[in-house]
């Protein structure tokens, strides 16, 4: 059985709350069946609004959303059969864990025996068996989170939406929950639409990530592509760390371009520049620039070390390079510790393929 590549489809969706500003602009997004897709973006970028439109709590101002090829704009939330995990869990405080999980089953008129079985299964899935009679207030944040996940899955929905579900947890718990949710997804194969503003969360969990900004999807691709090959400077900046140079194209040939900076010139990979004279922002990942490279690299420049920060597994070095005093390098601490001292001049090299000339900021 081939998976439906357009299981959820946003078709030219616009959304405005006040009739003056578009929160979501001309959104087109296809989500495949069984996929874990993350909507990532800064707050106010329209990602939660998209989720709410899919859940049915907001209506698109224009356009249509399809679920398994059926338009759903006129279907009320309770008939969509979409599970949802809320930011603050939204567990019903007056019901026990069992009653919380049984609620979606009871309203579907499922028999008592089947409810017991399904609740049991869902609770063991999130390793909370034996917590049936606890009240939500008696659970820790992480446990409440698991109950919320179990409740969203217990009635076997085809799509589960998660709205920043891990936002309220501390760092360690958040990381372990990320893996847990990922594993649950892998085991039951449900389609998950996940909203977060935490890029590491998005990179860890997703099959594909849709980066939102300003009401638009800036880039939709797998985590590695998103990181290695950002298509514009917003994505380059938002995902991971990023060194940038602003400049002007002075030569464009054979898949490389020459960029004139305020101090010097570099070679780069033209991504969104078309012709000579274009302004551009060149983006280089910190780990792509090497100190005293052994192999020949087509960019080689000297810089002055301005700051050295020890990070345990690696050392971050801030350089002044070609007029950019915010140039960051990550040096693994296992490597021969070269000559990293404050004020030293060192030689930095990178391949022009890794320096992506994007749209100007």
């Amino acid at each position, binding site marked *: 059985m081939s998976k439906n590549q357009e299981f959820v489809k946003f078709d030219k969706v616009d959304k405005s709350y006040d009739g003056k500003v578009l929160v979501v602009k001309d959104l087109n997004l296809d989500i495949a069946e069984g996929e874990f897709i993350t909507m990532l973006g800064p707050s106010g970028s329209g990602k939660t609004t998209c989720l709410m439109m899919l859940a049915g709590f907001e209506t698109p101002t224009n356009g249509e959303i399809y679920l398994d090829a059926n338009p759903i704009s006129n279907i009320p939330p*309770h008939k969509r059969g979409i599970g949802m995990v809320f930011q603050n869990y*939204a567990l019903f405080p007056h019901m026990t864990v069992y009653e919380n999980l049984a*609620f979606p089953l009871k*309203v579907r008129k499922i028999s008592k025996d089947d409810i017991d079985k399904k609740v049991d299964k869902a609770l063991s899935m999130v390793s909370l068996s034996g917590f049936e009679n606890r009240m939500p207030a008696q659970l820790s944040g992480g446990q409440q989170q698991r109950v919320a996940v179990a409740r*969203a899955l217990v009635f076997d929905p085809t799509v589960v939406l998660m709205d920043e579900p891990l936002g309220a947890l501390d760092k360690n718990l958040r990381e372990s929950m990320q893996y847990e949710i990922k594993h649950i997804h892998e085991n039951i194969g449900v389609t998950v639409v996940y909203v977060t503003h935490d890029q590491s969360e998005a990179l860890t969990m997703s099959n594909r990530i849709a980066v939102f900004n300003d009401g638009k999807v800036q880039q939709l691709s797998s985590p590695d592509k998103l990181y290695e090959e950002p298509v514009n400077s917003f994505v380059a900046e938002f995902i991971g760390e990023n060194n940038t140079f602003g400049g002007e194209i002075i030569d464009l040939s054979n898949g490389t371009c020459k960029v004139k900076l305020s101090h010097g010139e570099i070679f780069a990979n033209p991504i969104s520049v078309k012709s000579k004279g274009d302004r551009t922002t060149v983006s280089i990942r910190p780990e792509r620039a090497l100190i005293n490279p052994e192999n020949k690299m087509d960019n080689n420049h000297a810089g002055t070390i301005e700051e050295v920060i020890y990070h345990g597994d690696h050392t971050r070095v801030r350089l002044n390079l070609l007029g950019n005093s915010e140039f960051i390098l990550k040096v693994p601490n296992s490597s021969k510790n070269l000559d990293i001292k404050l004020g030293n001049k060192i030689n930095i090299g990178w391949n022009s393929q890794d320096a992506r000339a994007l749209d100007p900021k």
Partner: protein
Amino acid sequence: MSSETQQILTTDGIPLSVSLKKAERKNKIKAFLLVVPLLLFLIITYILPIGDMFMRSIDDKMVTNMLPKTFTAMEKWDGKEMPPEEVFAGFYSDFKILVQNKEHGKLAQRLNKEKNGFNSIIKKLFRQVQRNKIDEGRSIKEQIMKVHKRWRDVEYWQAIKRTAPPYTTAKYLKGMDMYYGPDGNIMQVDEDRRIHRILWLRTLEIAFFVTLFSFLMGYPIAHLLATLPMKYSNLLMICVLLPFWTSLLVRTASWMILLQQQGIVNDFFVMIGLVADDNRPEMMYNKVGTYVAMTQILLPFMVLPLYSVMKTISPSLMRAGKSLGGTPFVAFWKIYFPLTIPGIGAGCLLVFILAIGYYITPALVGGASGTLISNQIAYHMKTTLDWSFASAMGLMLLTGVLVVYWVYNKLVGVDNIKLG
């Protein structure tokens, strides 16, 4: 390990609990001194008056003090046959003192309440005593029995004996339309004279329905207040509170203007053709007026606790309910409504207790069929001056409120009340 628990000492060797007490003593005294004024205020303005009311309601010492010798003599009397000579002698010497002090009128009044017919025979006896017609040398029993035939009736002497105890619960019985019969049994007042029972029932009925109406009207308002955007909810809140800040009397008076037969509401009904001009319904001086005015006046007491509870219910709970497949009604009934119960409890309790003792509004718009027990209490305070009866009914009302509170505590739990 030794089984006895070791006493923990501080570094200077004093037991820890002693040190702790010493360290906390100053704060405790300070805290107590801070609440002393309030405590005194409460005792003086609340506890003492209620105590005084209670004493007043059961007090029956007047006759006891007026006829000390009579009651001493009566202790040996079986209360069935005519009393012996000593009782008459004691009564005569008590009565002589009353005549000297001109207090026989009070006695006549009090005994007449116990049994009709005392007024005239005491007046008759008074005239005999004033004219020194009673010869103390002869049998006083014979002479008094000659004054009037009722003095020969044993029932009148039984009535006197019943007034002997210094305390009585007669006022409470009267509040429930009952009284002590001649042989001390509790009797029912004739059916056509049972006015207090009607008033109690009506008070409960009106309090119940006012609570119900306030709830039905207040719940949606409170919900709107809690969910509307700040800009509108503030305006609505002012609309709810504005009547709250207006004088009670003014509000009641404005209802009188609205509801009277030639009033604005009736004019409007006639205008839209709902009623004929010569057949305007009476909406005032009856229960309708009391319901309308009291509901409006007590509505904020329902809305505010409800609002404060609803404000704390996250909107995502309703959303969660819907996304899990509950229809809007199921989501409301199974999720939202149970969470508002503390507010409902607080609002209903507040409105019911206020309504059960409401006075001004029923007095002004209630008319004959819309007055409540509180109006009856006021009537006895101000018009008949029967303060002990007013006190007894006041205490019965207070007891009723406490019972409501107790039942509520059993059903919902006072811990669950949320006033704000």
